């Protein structure tokens, strides 16, 4: 028996060795796996790519990505890619498909304009020149660049823009559902002219012209012919359309799919990209490949960045300055000094206004006064945020554009920098909220004030912030205990129409988008979200103030700058008086740490290029891909 198995084993070993020697890299027939995964739609030779992918033949060694032609990412993709269909919201394909108001990711699919959060500008991509409103600001005209082409060589036309919008609405995609309350239709006047008609209110004015502008830099333009192919194979069924993997998708961007599995996703440059035309970039982006390894967690991504296996890292790295100051690594950020990045988001602690005592403004403001924000910024954010002394709190993020939107002197007395224990105590004493039974905690009408402070488990910077909030409560006689549920549970509770589980809890706010700071006011204060099940839009504490709702309606339609400033100042006054929530820190939209061991000349603050720190793929940040250079 044993002899027999020995024979079998020996035969198997010989077979394996034979197979291994037969498949040395020199042979051209070694692309078994790659060929299957290589896109069938590579521009010029769609029929032959399955046989011999162009990219593979040029490589020195089959199956290896040359280091000096590849830009590696970390911190965007956390699981296998599902597909390449931009009409689906479930492709889990961060590098290729991310449509966001703050600047969509455009290496593969493109938008009409690219948003630049540094100056709020909209830079033409598929569009030609600036967009034009009519006098009544109800219709907008956008021209399409004559050079713009699809990957199959056909021109990008106004019909594609119109058909894409209609498809988004028809199939109720996130883009369609989000924009259809504000955009009535997108029409093709002729092959190169798009007319965007805003939805009008009863007064005949656009419901919200800001969101119409936002659409330009947010929603991808897809090819009409491809959408029709997709619809035909899915029998126009919305569910099937949104589940389709879109392997045959036609794109207009400089990169296309090259390889994807459970461990990585790789995009390859399309050297026929239309954007090398002088009317756009005038050249191709520098890296031939964009690759993203799928790491198990932040720690693994950080180790890879330090080892030089990652070039651009979109992860929060505590004490990032240590990487170059102590470890001497060639790693840098957008700014050489703290806060190291452009902070546009404001992670906020929300009060559940239906929790006992939190409907009392004295309690809300006292807790907010007592919190040691400097400790949060120093410990939780390791100084990667301006302090509230540097940028006093309001509804606006620290960017100069937003800071100029309101009258700073008018709200000066309402702002607080925190750690004001005596002030908080005095405020509670004055409101008659004192410790009557001697247990060290204050009571309101005989009931002890006791709350939990919640945020998702594992979000370490947020957890540290919540601990500091809890400590502040302790100091002023309000019992606050921390509570860290899993994200899957946390988000269901927070987005519910009403909840009694969390008293003080953290969520983010809007970042920099074309609708700001209006969007953030709505996000933080609008009562339109009250009672909404699955509310992902904001006002999670369920605050309600008719004047704020009125301001949210007035601001988008207002074009008089003075009036606008008045409205914004009033909103800030109300927010700082009522304290329905309070920001704990400022934070970038995308963390932007780069390792300069292979590539250099990354965008930096004040380098004269005006490229935002958006990891070289979001919005106008993609301009960075055309500027980076090899170190050697």
């Amino acid at each position, binding site marked *: 028996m044993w002899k027999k198995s020995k024979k079998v084993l020996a035969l198997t070993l010989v077979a394996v060795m034979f197979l291994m020697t037969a498949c040395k*890299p020199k042979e051209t027939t070694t692309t078994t796996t790659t060929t299957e995964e290589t896109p069938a739609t590579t521009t010029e030779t769609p029929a032959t790519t399955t046989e011999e992918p162009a990219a593979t033949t040029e490589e020195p*060694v089959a*199956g290896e990505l*040359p280091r000096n032609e590849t830009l590696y990412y970390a911190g965007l993709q956390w*699981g*296998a890619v599902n597909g390449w269909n931009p009409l689906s919201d*479930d492709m889990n394909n961060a590098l290729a498909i991310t449509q966001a108001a703050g600047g969509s990711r455009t290496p593969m699919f493109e938008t009409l304009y690219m948003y630049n959060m540094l100056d709020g500008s909209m830079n033409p991509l598929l569009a030609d020149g600036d967009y034009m409103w009519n006098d009544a600001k109800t219709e907008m005209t956008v021209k399409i660049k004559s050079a713009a082409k699809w990957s199959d060589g056909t021109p990008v036309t106004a019909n594609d823009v119109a058909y894409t919008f209609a498809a988004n609405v028809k199939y109720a995609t996130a883009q369609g559902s989000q924009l*259809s309350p504000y955009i009535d239709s997108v029409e093709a006047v002729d092959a190169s002219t798009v007319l965007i008609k805003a939805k009008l209110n009863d007064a005949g004015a656009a419901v919200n012209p800001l969101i119409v502008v936002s659409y330009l830099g947010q929603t991808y333009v897809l090819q009409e012919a491809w959408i029709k192919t997709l619809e035909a194979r899915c029998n126009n069924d919305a569910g099937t359309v949104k589940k389709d993997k879109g392997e045959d998708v036609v794109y207009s961007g400089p990169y296309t799919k090259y390889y994807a599995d459970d461990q990585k996703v790789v995009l390859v440059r399309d050297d026929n990209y239309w954007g090398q035309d002088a009317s756009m970039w005038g050249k191709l982006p520098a890296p031939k490949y964009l690759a993203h390894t799928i790491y198990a967690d932040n720690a693994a991504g950080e180790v890879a960045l330090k080892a030089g296996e990652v070039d651009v890292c979109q992860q929060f790295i505590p004490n990032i300055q240590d990487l170059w100051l102590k470890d001497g690594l060639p790693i840098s950020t957008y700014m050489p000094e703290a806060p190291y990045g452009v902070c546009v988001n404001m992670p906020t602690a929300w009060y559940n206004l239906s929790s006992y005592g939190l409907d009392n403004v004295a309690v809300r403001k006292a807790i907010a006064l007592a919190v040691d924000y400097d400790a949060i910024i120093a410990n939780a954010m390791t100084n990667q945020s301006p302090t509230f002394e540097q940028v006093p709190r309001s509804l606006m993020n620290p960017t100069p554009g937003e800071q100029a939107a309101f009258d700073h002197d008018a709200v000066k007395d309402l702002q607080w920098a925190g750690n004001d224990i005596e002030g908080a105590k005095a405020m509670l004493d004055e409101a008659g909220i004192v410790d009557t039974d001697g247990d060290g905690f204050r009571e309101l009408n005989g009931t002890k004030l006791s709350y939990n402070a919640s945020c998702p488990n594992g979000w370490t910077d947020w957890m540290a912030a919540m601990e500091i909030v809890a400590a502040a409560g302790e100091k002023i006689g309000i019992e606050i205990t921390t509570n860290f549920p899993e994200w899957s549970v946390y988000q269901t509770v927070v987005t519910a129409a009403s909840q009694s589980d969390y008293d003080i809890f953290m969520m983010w706010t809007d970042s920099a988008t074309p609708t700001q700071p209006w969007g953030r006011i709505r996000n933080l204060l609008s009562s339109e979200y009250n009672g909404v099940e699955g509310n992902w839009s904001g006002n999670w504490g369920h605050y309600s103030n008719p004047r704020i709702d009125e301001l949210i309606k007035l601001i988008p339609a207002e074009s008089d700058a003075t009036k606008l400033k008045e409205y914004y100042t009033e909103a800030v006054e109300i927010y700082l008086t009522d304290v329905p929530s309070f920001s704990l820190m400022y934070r970038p939209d995308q963390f932007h740490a780069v390792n300069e061991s292979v590539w250099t000349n990354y965008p930096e603050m004040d380098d004269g290029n005006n490229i935002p720190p958006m990891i070289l793929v979001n919005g106008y940040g993609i301009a960075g891909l055309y500027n980076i250079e090899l170190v050697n």
Partner: protein
Amino acid sequence: MKGYKQYFRKKIIWFLITFVVAVLLNFILPRLMPGDPVAVITAKSAQGISDVSAVKQIYEGYAEQFGTNQPMYIQFFKYFKNALVGDFGLSFSQYPRPVSDIISSAVWWTVCLQLPAIIVGWLLGNILGALAAYIRKGFDKVLMPITLFASSVPAFGMAVVLLVFFAIKLKIAPISGGYGYDMIPNFSWNFIKSIISHYQLPFWSIVIISIGGQAIGMRSMSIYELNADYVKYSRFLGIKDRKIVGYVFRNAMLPQITGLALSLGTMIGGALVAEIIFSYPGLGTTLLAAITMADYPLLSAATLVITLMVLFATFAIDIIYGFIDPRVKAAQFD
């Protein structure tokens, strides 16, 4: 032979009962977790949508597709019926990817990492244990304490130590992944080399900590058996040492085989730490992601795979025991 037949029949009946109960628990337990996974995937589509009815529509669309709007027992029968043909439905966390696709692409990494690691750890452990019992000297005084020390290090600790020492400090091993960060899978020597070098740290992190436990078990059993009456009696009878050693081994190995079978059965859960520390693809990380995302279909399927492996392993032990140790079979009929 009649005794064996009855013994097998009894075992098979128990096996089936356990299987049905396990499938039921696999279905129910994940669904008792707090949180609503349909809301989680709705969130991906619903961010930024202010239209109330639009969000509700998206939610209901997903609920319809996953059948979570139906009563639990209908969901169960549907699940059971589909599971029989290997269809576990679509994953919540990686929607619209089918669960069977996720599992089939992950399971091979886990099996190829764990199976050799467990067997190598088991073999080394048993050899060391036996040598420590027979030869003593250096094996018992030096090697045993060292392996015991190593096996008392928690799995994640061992993995991190190996990672920091060999990958980060010495830079002689890759830091993460199943193959090179700069590779595209293909059938070439470079790729195979890359797979092998990425295999080393996760593999040894499992082997090193499993040697000690196996060795100490084997050592105690061997010493016990060496002093057993039948050994002394055999010696009196003048039976050759080699023959006696054979008896001793057969008896000492019994609990070790149980240990091996059980660790083979539970290998998927055991791979978790190595897979996470080294970002190694596999079912362990998939399972963890499924738990944190409340991904019922994926969780049920992954736990079902584990259940089946444990069940088959214990079933196999029971059957094999019946042959190699007639006392076990006999005990069943007492």
